[in-house]
């Protein structure tokens, strides 16, 4: 019901390329709508940080500065030490080697025991926190509060500087447990 005459991707993928080009009524590859995005426009919007750390801004963060940012801008919602709430618990209450999650219905998931990449902390805090003023932290503040969160989760010590080079290098304990979904439907065993 939603297929047009010629699936677009078939043309792009080179499948039946000749029939794409020869048909007078074929859907054009290019309509010419929209306008070119400038490098500046892209730079201002491309804020997502993948595990490689590509796109991390200049700057450094320390655990000490992070403690100050956390106390003034985060603790009210996440608790003085990151475990008290009222909102999401940010500091793992148990070690990475406690009983696996599949055998513990109420095991708390937090950065230290559940997050697979440290870059996600920077990315998420910069885009969405503090909840009442999202996007208000400077990059240095984000680096610092990230450092504090990693320290509080026993992933770095007090002297580690967090920046574009050190952050992607941190190996998170939960990383090794992650698997990609393999459910396929059908009437095989449930997954």
């Amino acid at each position, binding site marked *: 019901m939603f297929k047009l005459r010629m699936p677009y991707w078939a043309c792009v993928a080179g499948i039946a390329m000749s029939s794409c080009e020869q048909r007078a009524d074929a859907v054009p590859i290019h309509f010419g709508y929209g306008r070119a995005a400038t490098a500046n426009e892209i730079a201002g919007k491309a804020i997502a940080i993948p595990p490689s750390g590509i796109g991390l801004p200049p700057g450094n963060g320390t655990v000490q500065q992070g403690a100050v940012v956390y106390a003034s801008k985060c603790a009210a919602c996440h608790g003085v030490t990151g475990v008290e709430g009222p909102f999401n618990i940010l500091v793992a209450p148990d070690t990475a080697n406690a009983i696996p999650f599949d055998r513990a219905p109420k095991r708390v998931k937090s950065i230290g025991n559940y997050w697979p990449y440290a870059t996600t902390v920077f990315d998420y805090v910069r885009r969405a926190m503090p909840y009442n003023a999202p996007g208000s932290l400077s990059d240095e503040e984000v680096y610092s509060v990230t450092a504090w969160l990693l320290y509080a989760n026993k992933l770095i010590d007090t002297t580690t500087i967090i920046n574009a080079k050190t952050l992607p290098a941190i190996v998170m304990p939960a990383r090794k447990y992650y*698997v990609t979904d393999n459910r396929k439907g059908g009437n095989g065993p449930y997954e």
Partner: protein
Amino acid sequence: MSQKMTRRRLLLGGAATAAVAIVKTSFGKMVQTGIPEAALDPTKHVGPLPSALGTRSPFEHPQRKATLTSSQTPLQDLYGIITPSDLHFERHHAGVPAIDPNTYELLIHGMVDRPTIFSLSDLKRFPSVSRICFVECSGNFRKPDKESITPQDICGLTSQSEWTGVMLSTLFREVGVKPKATWFLAEGSDAAVMTRSIPVSKGWEEAMIVYAQNGEAIRPQQGYPARLLLPGWEGNTSIKWLRRIELSDGPFMTREETSKYTEPVKDGKIRQFSFTMDARSIITYPAYPVQVQKGWVEIRGLAWSGRGKIARVEISTNAGKTWNIAQLQEPVLDKAHTYFRYLWQWNGDTTEIMSRAIDETGYIQPSLEQLIKARGIGTGYHLNPVTAWLVKRDGQVVYKPEQWK
């Protein structure tokens, strides 16, 4: 103006003899406040004349059930497969943003030949497509321990609309997606700046950027002025208020695909990128708080699968001992809510009624016990178990609480 005068006079005329309440507002204007009671003989009074915007009957009160983070569709109050737009479920992470369609922009960049910015009117100029499909939150499951639970409470985080927009493949061709691009990031412009990584293959196959829902502009709660739509996939991936798409050669590992929307499974593993919604069904009638009478009862409900069409729905009226085939109401669409019916003669004995969906891949909707056995008790998300309703001797239908074990 003169038309309005005529109308007011007409209404006043009617009010002289009946219970149409004419109220004087603070501005001294006379307004009719509606006819709340059925006591009037409608054949003896001229009713309200045509108006700019329709309303529901004052006797109907379907409502979403809202919490701080979501609101659920009242499945038990609906007939057929389309969810009225104002009853579509909501799940958002930082409220509903107000976006001006005139300044709205969608940026597509990254591994593309021509990074491009599209306005809303640009998007609307492309060849358009309409499709009916469900959107369901992968957290659409409650494990209540009491009987007074409605279909809305159990799985009201699924809704269905006719969506209209442009195929993402059209835009991919427009910007020239590079062959090495295997994933793309979709980003919303709400206060959570919500992001998900999506395999490019889904983008080429059936993803859409939609700007209309059930024939009108998409509702703010559903992503106005434009959202991503990934049929059959967990609702969170269909990023609302879409502002940016970045083509890449790997996933970004955003918070919503690591900390959230992942589930612990067997052997201590954490399952990630569980995109597809498995087949599910729910009896929406009779269900709590309905009370049935002895005799014929038409069992009704919804079935759907993120893997294709519903092939079959089976009903048990004896607590799962035997199963019978329900009638499917056309249309039976790909990745869409499908309406089913089954005529049952209730003899007045206590029993349990339940439905299970079978999709075109042959997948059979499991029990909660089967799901937990396959994944472990620490699991979450993507729970689609068979739901049983207990019919008591007095005809009262209640939810049958299940043990989480």
